[in-house]
């Protein structure tokens, strides 16, 4: 009984002591998550459309990008960009490397999500667009993609959470994110249980924010399609 009470008290104390450092780390984590997600969405659309509609060299390029970044490990990609790029004369801030690596990685998975959603739009829509003499790009832009976006949102939500989890890897290239701070504090105080539990809850909190945001987005996007006030 006393032990549990002591644990609870100690946890609160721990919490207050560690909070500032962890919040700093959380800020970095969120920065990298947001940057990575934006890049991922851009890469996914570019790659998906290149793969489906581009001339064959472009298609080949898009396919290679997708296969390589999906077929190798995120950590390997992160390390490669971090350790190897300098040899080619490209010097980037570690955070930039992190955003690029994670954005490219999740973007490759996202390309399949985009492709799947575009394909799922009913063929009749393409035919109607053709009958109205639209070019393929116009049809894609005005008719197909707007309808595809609603279907994309749940899988993108999952991918964004994957990206959030992947940001913990950047602690291994010395970026002071949430995981790095946790490790740091663990080394100095060895209050492992409390620190890591708190950190896990932090991640869960950020993940929940993403989930809620995606659900709201889905509702807004579906509104135009399904209902609408006369």
């Amino acid at each position, binding site marked *: 009984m006393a032990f549990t009470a002591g644990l609870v008290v100690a946890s609160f104390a721990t919490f207050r002591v560690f909070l500032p450092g962890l919040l700093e780390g959380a800020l970095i984590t969120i920065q990298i998550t947001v940057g990575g997600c934006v890049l991922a969405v851009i890469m996914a659309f570019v790659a998906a459309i290149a793969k489906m509609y581009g001339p064959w060299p472009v298609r080949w390029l898009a396919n290679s990008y997708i296969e390589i970044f999906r077929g190798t490990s995120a950590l390997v990609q992160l390390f490669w960009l971090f350790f190897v790029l300098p040899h080619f004369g490209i010097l980037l801030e570690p955070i930039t490397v992190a955003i690029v690596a994670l954005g490219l990685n999740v973007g490759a998975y996202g390309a399949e999500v985009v492709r799947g959603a575009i394909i799922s739009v009913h063929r009749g829509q393409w*035919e109607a667009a053709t009958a109205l003499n*639209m070019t393929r790009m116009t049809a894609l832009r005005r008719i197909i993609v707007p309808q595809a976006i609603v279907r994309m949102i749940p899988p993108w939500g999952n991918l964004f959470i994957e990206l959030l989890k992947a940001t913990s890897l950047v602690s291994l290239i010395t970026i002071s994110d949430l995981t790095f701070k946790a490790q740091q504090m663990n080394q100095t105080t060895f209050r492992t249980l409390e620190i890591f539990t708190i950190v896990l809850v932090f991640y869960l909190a950020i993940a929940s924010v993403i989930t809620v945001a995606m659900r709201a987005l889905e509702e807004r996007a579906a509104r135009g399609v399904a209902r*609408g006030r006369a």
Partner: protein
Amino acid sequence: MSTSDAPSANGEPMVRFEKVTKSYGALTVLDELDLDIAAGEKVAIIGPSGSGKTTVLRMLMTLETINDGVIWVEGEPLTHMQRNGGLVPADARHLRRIRGKIGMVFQHFNLFPHMTALKNCMEAPVMVLGMPKREAEKRASELLEMVGLGDKLGHYPSQLSGGQQQRVAIARACAMRPKIMLFDEVTSALDPELVGEVLSVIRKLGAEHDLTMLMVTHQMGFAKEFADRVCFFYAGKIAEQGPPEQIFGAPKNERTQQFLSAVLEAG
């Protein structure tokens, strides 16, 4: 058994199918089809399923490629281009130029669900013809007025009945001012009580505008009253064609008789 003695108006036919063949692998859907359609003519295409009737429309709308033969529109080849005195397969730009003369209304409407009725009818004129928005809006509302939906401009397709959606689809196709309108079984997906409103719009269209109309239909009564000519398709060829009185009243071909009696029995 394909006949090419179709009546043609003054000079060039509006549409000409010249020995057009379409196959899917081993299955031949259209077999060296010859068909001429005059400007302003209203042609009804009837026949059992699998006879190739829808394919005729889809090829004209460039939704399907052809395997052999040439389709001509207003004296120009649609599926091919003139090059050095010969014909080569058409490129995308050529297709788009000729395609602009043709419009189509689909069995399942294919309205854009994320746009209102008005926007559906404005989209193509603005995006394809480069029409300024205000002008497109005016034209769209006039057309929707004409099909009897002037009060539903801001409605989304999901808020409209099947008949209303199909009428929007007709208005949408008209907005591009095609010379040739294709109707692919446009009432087959409708509840029976909604069929009439769509047919009257088509009737109105035929009366008020000088459109060449090609329709695949099961509405025999409508075809009898509206069409100038009826073509009966069977197994990828035109088994018989002629004015409605002949086809419905005194069909010469045995298959035509069989089909019509089966349809009449189904009532």
